[in-house]
C-alpha cells in the first residue's frame, strides 16, 4: 500500500469514528424522542431522517456543498464572523457524513428504545431513579443490541460513502481523500492492483464487522429474550 493509500485509510477511519461519535450524541436523544413522542411532527422528522436512504448521495452532497460553501448560509455565516467556510474541508465532510449516515444511527436506536417496555422505566421510577438515571441504568443496557447495530452500521456506512464525499470534500490528500475516492482514483488511472487491494480490504473488513455484530446480537437474544 502506498503512503497516500495509508493516508486515505487514516482519513477514512478518522471521519467514520468522528461521524459515529457525533451521531451517537445527536442521534440518541432524537431516537429516544421519536420512540416515545405522540407529537404530530414526529412522522415528518422521521421521514426527513430517512431521506438519505433514498436520495442519490450527490443530491445531498450538492446541497451540503452549497450550504457550507462561502456563499451558502452556513459557510457565509462563518466567513462573516471571520472564520473559514467548510467546503472541501474535513469538518465539512464530518457534517455531511453526519446527515448522510443519520438514518443508520437513528432507526435501529429508535426500534431498540421502542422495544424497552414502559413498565421497565416505570419500575425504575418507583425505585427512585430519575429520568437520566433511568435512561442510563435501564433503557440503554436493554437497548444494547440496537445500540451495537446502530454504531456498526453508522461506522460501516460512513466508511463506504463516496458521492457525498466527492461533492463536499473533493479529493485533498490527508484531509478529504478517503478510501472510496482512492479506489476510484486507482481505477481511473488503470492501477487495478491498487484498487483491488483497497476494495478487497474494504469488502473483507465490512463483512467481518457485520458478522461480529450479528453474532453478538444473536448471543444477546438468547440471554435476554
Amino acid at each position, binding site marked *: 500500500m502506498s503512503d497516500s493509500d495509508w493516508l486515505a485509510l487514516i482519513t477514512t477511519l478518522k471521519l467514520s469514528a468522528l461521524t459515529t461519535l457525533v451521531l451517537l450524541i445527536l442521534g440518541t436523544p432524537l431516537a429516544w424522542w421519536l420512540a416515545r413522542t405522540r407529537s404530530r411532527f414526529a412522522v415528518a422528522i422521521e421521514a426527513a431522517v430517512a431521506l438519505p436512504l433514498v436520495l442519490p448521495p450527490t443530491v445531498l452532497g450538492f446541497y451540503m456543498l452549497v450550504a457550507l460553501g462561502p456563499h451558502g448560509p452556513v459557510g457565509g455565516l462563518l466567513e462573516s464572523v471571520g472564520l473559514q467556510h467548510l467546503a472541501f474541508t474535513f469538518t465539512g465532510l464530518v457534517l455531511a457524513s453526519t446527515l448522510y449516515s443519520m438514518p443508520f444511527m437513528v432507526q435501529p436506536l429508535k426500534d431498540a428504545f421502542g422495544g424497552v417496555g414502559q413498565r421497565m422505566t*416505570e419500575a*425504575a*421510577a*418507583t*425505585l427512585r*431513579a430519575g429520568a437520566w438515571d433511568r435512561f442510563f441504568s435501564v433503557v440503554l443496557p436493554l437497548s444494547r443490541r440496537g445500540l451495537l447495530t446502530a454504531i456498526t452500521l453508522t461506522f460501516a456506512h460512513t466508511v463506504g460513502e463516496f458521492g457525498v464525499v466527492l461533492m463536499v470534500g473533493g479529493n485533498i490528500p490527508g484531509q478529504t481523500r478517503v478510501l472510496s475516492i482512492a479506489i476510484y482514483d486507482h481505477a481511473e488511472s488503470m492501477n487495478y492492483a491498487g484498487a483491488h487491494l483497497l476494495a478487497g480490504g474494504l469488502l473483507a473488513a465490512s463483512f467481518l464487522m457485520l458478522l461480529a455484530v450479528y453474532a453478538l446480537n444473536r448471543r444477546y437474544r438468547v440471554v435476554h429474550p
Partner: protein
Amino acid sequence: MSIRARFRLQRAGFMLDVDAQFPLRGITSLFGASGSGKTTLLRCIAGLERTPGSLQVGDEIWQNETTSVPTHRRTLGYVFQEASLFPHLSVRANLEYGYRRIPPAERKVRLEQVVAWLGLNQLIERHDPAQLSGGERQRVAIGRALLTSPRLLLMDEPLSALDTHSKQEILPYLEALHRELEIPVLYVSHALDEVARLADHLLLLQAGQVIACGAPGEILARLDLPTAHFDDAGAVIEATVVQHDERYGLTQLDCGDGIVWVGRIGHPLGSRVRARVLARDVSIALQHAHDTSISNILPARIAEICDEGADKVNVRMTIGASNVLLSRITRRSRDRLDLRAGMAVYAQVKSVALM
C-alpha cells in the same frame, strides 16, 4: 395519619373520579371488578399517571393543584402485577437497585433482613432473573420495593399472575408484611378471598368511583354493594379461640353470641382470629335442629333480605351484638319458611374458613 386522594381522569370510555380518605396503616385494599379504575387510582397515587388532583400522604403533599412530585421522589414502593424485574441485572442487583438510590440515613430496611425474611438466600446469587419461577420473581420484586424503605407500599394485584401454589407461597409474607415492617400497604385486588384475608380497610370501586369505604367486615356484610353478588360472597367474623379439642382435632371459637367449631388450628387460647363464612355455606332453620351433621348452629336475627338473581335471595343476619352472617338461599325456601326481617332464626354454618 391518613391518605387523602382526589383525582379526576378522563380516558376514552372511562372516567376516574375519586375523592377518598383512608388510614395510613395496615393494608388498605382497592377492590373492584376489572375496569373499575382501581389500578388507575393506584397509578395516580404513584405519580405514574398524570392527571389533575391532589394527594396527601400523612404530612407529605405529593400532589396539589400546582405541583406534582415526580414518582422517583415519592417515598413509595410499587409491586406490579408482573414482577417486572430488570432482565439485564442479577437478582442481587435488582434488589439493590432502589436501595442504592436512597440516602443511607433513610435506609431502615437492610438487605440481609429482606433476604432472610423473604427467603431469598438461594436466589440472590442467580444472574438471570428470567430463570426464576413466577412466585420467586414476585418475592424478589417485593423485596426490591421494600429495600427503598417506603412510607407506603403500593401493590397492583401482585398475586393475580401466579398459580395457586405460588399464591400460597406469597400470601403469608403479605400478611406478615405490615405486622413486621409496619409499612402501610395499598393493595389492588379483584379476588374477594384475598381481600377478606388481608385487608384492614376496604375501598370499593365501581366505574371509576369509590362507592364504599370502611372495614372489610362491614362492607362485605352489606347486601346493597356489588360484593354481595359474588359467587363467594360472605361475611367476615372476628372470634376468640376458647378451646382445643384434641380428640376430634377441632378448635372452638367464640364469636360474640355463639360458639363455632373449626378444624384444629395452632393459635393459642384467647387469641383473636378472623374467619370467613361464605353465604352459600349458610342455611337457615326456624328451629334448632339437633339431628343434623352440622355442628355449627347459631341463633341469629334476620336483618335484611335482598333478591339475588332470578331464583335466590341474600339474607343478612346478626349474631349477637357485633357479628354478621350472610346466607344465600333459594327464593322458594324464603317463601316456604316465610322469612322476614326481624325474625329470630338459626343459622346453620356448613363451613368456616379461617384466615
